[in-house]
């Protein structure tokens, strides 16, 4: 997610160079590429459904809306509780294992929602080993006598999503506790408030904007999810879009639901933006010393360690262990099938292409705002990042509309001029998937690169220009070498997100092309548990990489907080 913060230089610094115009034009093209699908979606939705509009309104939309709202509220509450308590646990108390817990709490981020649902469906199967052991302990003999409540329910979905999405709240809240609360907590304690009461009276109120940002991001992920909700039988709007499109082949209808969904997303983005502004104000207000964790007794320490481990065990360890054993069993049984190897190749090819495109456009957009700061470039930056909040299904429909239009146009033109039919040039080639992934993840790329560039003082640009380099030469010789780390980090994040991404890939991949994610979806949807565990394990293993990166950034944040 973009944490693009522009460092406030002297406010009057404005870069002139008319040579930067080319960059601005390129940036405008990047923004157009992103905005086009949304525009296409709106146009398609306005066309009106093929007579099914009434049906849509009376039967699908009410249920979808109800389920979506319940899911959002549930996931929002659960992630808020888990995220803030774990963040407070590791910042306020010092106990053996705290350091480990600090970064291990990020691990559930590596488990995509559709994978946790896939894993728990099998782990908690009524005739699976977990429920079997419980029955054995309690002395029951058959699932008919005793079984746990079915995981395939709204409650199950909320729980599972909550346990993988809480890190979105944990990260900003912990950062807030680390950088902000120290002096204020001390002040509160000298005013006679107990350490425990400080959480409710000082720390939590201060962290509210951070919590809000986190919840907004977690809910965006919830809206993006198509796998977990479908496997668990929750009919969210995202699922409805998918079924309306695929089973009813009603594209205008799907566009209409998508547009409605987009309204919810816009509300979430508004909440996130608002909270970020608040957060900035709160952190800028005073340079403050971080909170000093309190030593606790060994017994209490064990207790805290256990409490902090629960979300990790449920959100990461259990599914990861399950996937590892299942993948191992499958490998012993059948080895690696050629099919799986093919999927690995297509997964990596698609992710690599999308990463290259996304990073290139991100470089253009970020550098244009540096070369020509002002309203125009800032607007372009914002436009080019609108995709980050849009669910994959929504982006997919938009991309489909745009590219299908292009394909028709090119086909017709080719037919008119050369008498040759080009067929579905974009849709057939996989360009659509790359396009959709670019729209979705350009924000990560542009935001990360912009943050990297903003750490380079403006005077280096001016020095380079007065020493004879053009803006492009300056970019090559100064900015590129100095922001290598930021660019690589952004590329890694985008690459991994592309591998994890399910809905857009599912909807737009060319015929007969499967990635790890779509394979897993296919098996889970059919209820067959074959090679998917290997694919899922691969996705989780790759997804751990950015978590490690994130944890390093996190500890850097701590040392900075400790210095001041």
């Amino acid at each position, binding site marked *: 997610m973009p944490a693009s913060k522009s460092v406030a230089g002297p406010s*009057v610094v404005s870069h002139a*160079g*008319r040579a930067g115009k080319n960059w601005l034009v390129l940036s405008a093209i990047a923004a157009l590429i992103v905005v086009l699908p949304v525009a296409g979606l709106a146009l398609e939705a306005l066309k009106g459904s093929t007579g099914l509009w009434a049906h849509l309104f009376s039967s699908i939309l009410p249920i979808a809306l109800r389920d979506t709202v319940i899911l959002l509220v549930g996931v929002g509450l659960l992630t808020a509780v888990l995220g803030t308590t774990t963040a407070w646990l590791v910042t306020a108390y010092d106990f053996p294992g705290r350091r480990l817990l600090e970064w291990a709490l990020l691990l559930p981020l590596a488990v995509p929602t559709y994978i946790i649902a896939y894993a728990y469906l099998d782990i908690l199967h009524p005739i699976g080993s977990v429920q079997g052991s419980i029955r054995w302990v309690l002395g029951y003999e058959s699932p008919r006598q005793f079984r746990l409540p079915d995981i395939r329910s709204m409650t199950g979905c909320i729980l599972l999503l909550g346990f993988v999405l809480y890190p979105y709240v944990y990260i900003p809240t912990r950062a807030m506790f680390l950088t902000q609360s120290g002096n204020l907590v001390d002040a509160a304690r000298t005013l006679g408030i107990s350490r425990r009461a400080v959480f409710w009276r000082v720390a939590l109120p201060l962290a509210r904007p951070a919590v809000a940002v986190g919840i907004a991001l977690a809910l965006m992920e919830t809206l993006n999810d198509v796998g977990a909700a479908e496997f668990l039988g929750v009919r969210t709007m995202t699922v409805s879009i998918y079924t309306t499109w695929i089973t009813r082949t009603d594209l205008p209808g799907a566009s209409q639901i998508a547009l409605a969904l987009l309204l919810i997303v816009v509300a979430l983005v508004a909440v996130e933006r608002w909270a970020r502004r608040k957060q900035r104000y709160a952190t800028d207000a005073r340079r403050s010393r971080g909170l000093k964790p309190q030593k606790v007794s060994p017994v209490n320490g064990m207790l805290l360690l256990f409490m902090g481990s629960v979300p990790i065990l449920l959100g990461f360890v259990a599914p990861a262990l399950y996937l590892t054993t299942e993948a191992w069993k499958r490998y012993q049984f059948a080895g690696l099938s050629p099919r799986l190897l093919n999927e690995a190749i297509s997964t990596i090819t698609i992710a690599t292409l999308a990463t290259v495109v996304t990073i290139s456009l991100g470089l253009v957009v970020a550098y244009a705002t540096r070369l020509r700061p002002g309203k125009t470039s800032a607007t372009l930056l914002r436009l080019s990042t609108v995709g980050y909040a849009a669910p994959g299904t929504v982006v997919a429909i938009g991309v489909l509309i745009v590219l299908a239009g292009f394909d028709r146009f090119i086909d017709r033109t080719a037919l008119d001029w050369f008498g040759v039919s080009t067929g579905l040039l974009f849709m057939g080639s996989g360009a659509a998937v790359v396009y959709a992934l670019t729209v979705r993840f350009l924000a990560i790329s542009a935001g990360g690169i912009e943050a990297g560039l903003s750490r380079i003082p403006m005077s280096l*640009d*001016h020095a380079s220009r*007065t020493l*004879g380099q053009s803006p492009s030469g300056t970019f090559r010789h100064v900015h590129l070498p100095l922001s290598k780390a930021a660019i690589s980090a952004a590329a890694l994040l985008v690459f991994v997100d592309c591998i994890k991404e399910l809905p857009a890939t599912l909807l737009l991949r060319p015929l007969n092309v499967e990635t790890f994610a779509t394979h897993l979806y296919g098996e889970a949807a059919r209820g067959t548990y074959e090679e998917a565990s290997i694919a899922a394990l691969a996705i989780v293993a790759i997804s751990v990489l950015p978590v490690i990166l994130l944890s390093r950034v996190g500890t850097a944040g701590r040392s900075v907080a400790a210095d001041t």
Partner: protein
Amino acid sequence: MKQDIALQLINVGRSFGATAAVRGISIDIAKGEVISLVGHSGCGKSTLLRIISGVETIDSGRVLLDGHEVDGGCFVEPEMRGVGFVFQDYALFPHLSVRDNILFGLKRHSRAEALANAEDVIRRVGIEHLLERFPHTLSGGEQQRVALARALAPRPGIVLMDEPFSNLDQGLRGQVRTETLSLLKSLNTTVIMVTHDPQEALSTGDRVVLMRSGEIVQVGSGYDLYDRPANAYAADFFCVSNKIPGICRGDRIETPIGNFLRSGEANEGGATTVHIRPQAIAISLDRGEITARVKERVFHGETEHILLAVDGLETPLKAVALDRLPKGAEVVKVSIDSERVLSF
């Protein structure tokens, strides 16, 4: 166009939103001239440097370098202007060694020429021992010299320096300044140096340009600006003076401590103010027309700052004494050097 003019600014203006950073700036700068551009922070002096270098554009007016228009009717990119820039934070490229920093601006030259140029400037600036080091390992003074060498290496026609000595320790500053300026003089380079320090401005530069709120207040030699300030602002910028209320009578101004020759506009019978620098007030025990009481003495070593209460004046007079008053002196005689009294 005269051959010996390096830079010409004609009615240059630049605004950011509603605020004018610079406006109506016109000045000709001769080749080989050293200009110190001085003013309080936010007066537009750094903006003016950026305009000359081309990293900032103008809204109105024209900029001519060496007789060729570079902004106004057309725009020449900074990389094509042949202007050297020494930045306040030195702006050394952190990923390049000192040698590569200096070679950075020599891309357009042939390899041999680039090396010869670089070697020459490295020797002149005296940084032969630093070439393999990276900027973060250098002291402030060393960084300053590298920045200077880098700016000079492409043999720019004009060198712009933005507060080049402000990041140095007080002790080092004077020495580095002298060395830098004598080097620039020996190269016969045109230099514009921005500073906010009045003493630095007066002691460097063939001419001093004083700016305020984006406009030029006065241009002239250091002596001109100090002895004949154009207005009260210029007078106070270089030295805070005593402001004594008075009344215009003919070509004189009557004040409670004497009548002084008027140098400002006539305003018969109207209220005005005369400015008396502390240095223009001589204190002794017996010589002087005015009797004053010593209110406060602050010892500064070479000088002593003395506050004097005088009958008829609401605020006490500030004076600077070179000769020490006897200990415990309470009532003294004061005389004012009327040649050095200013009025506007």
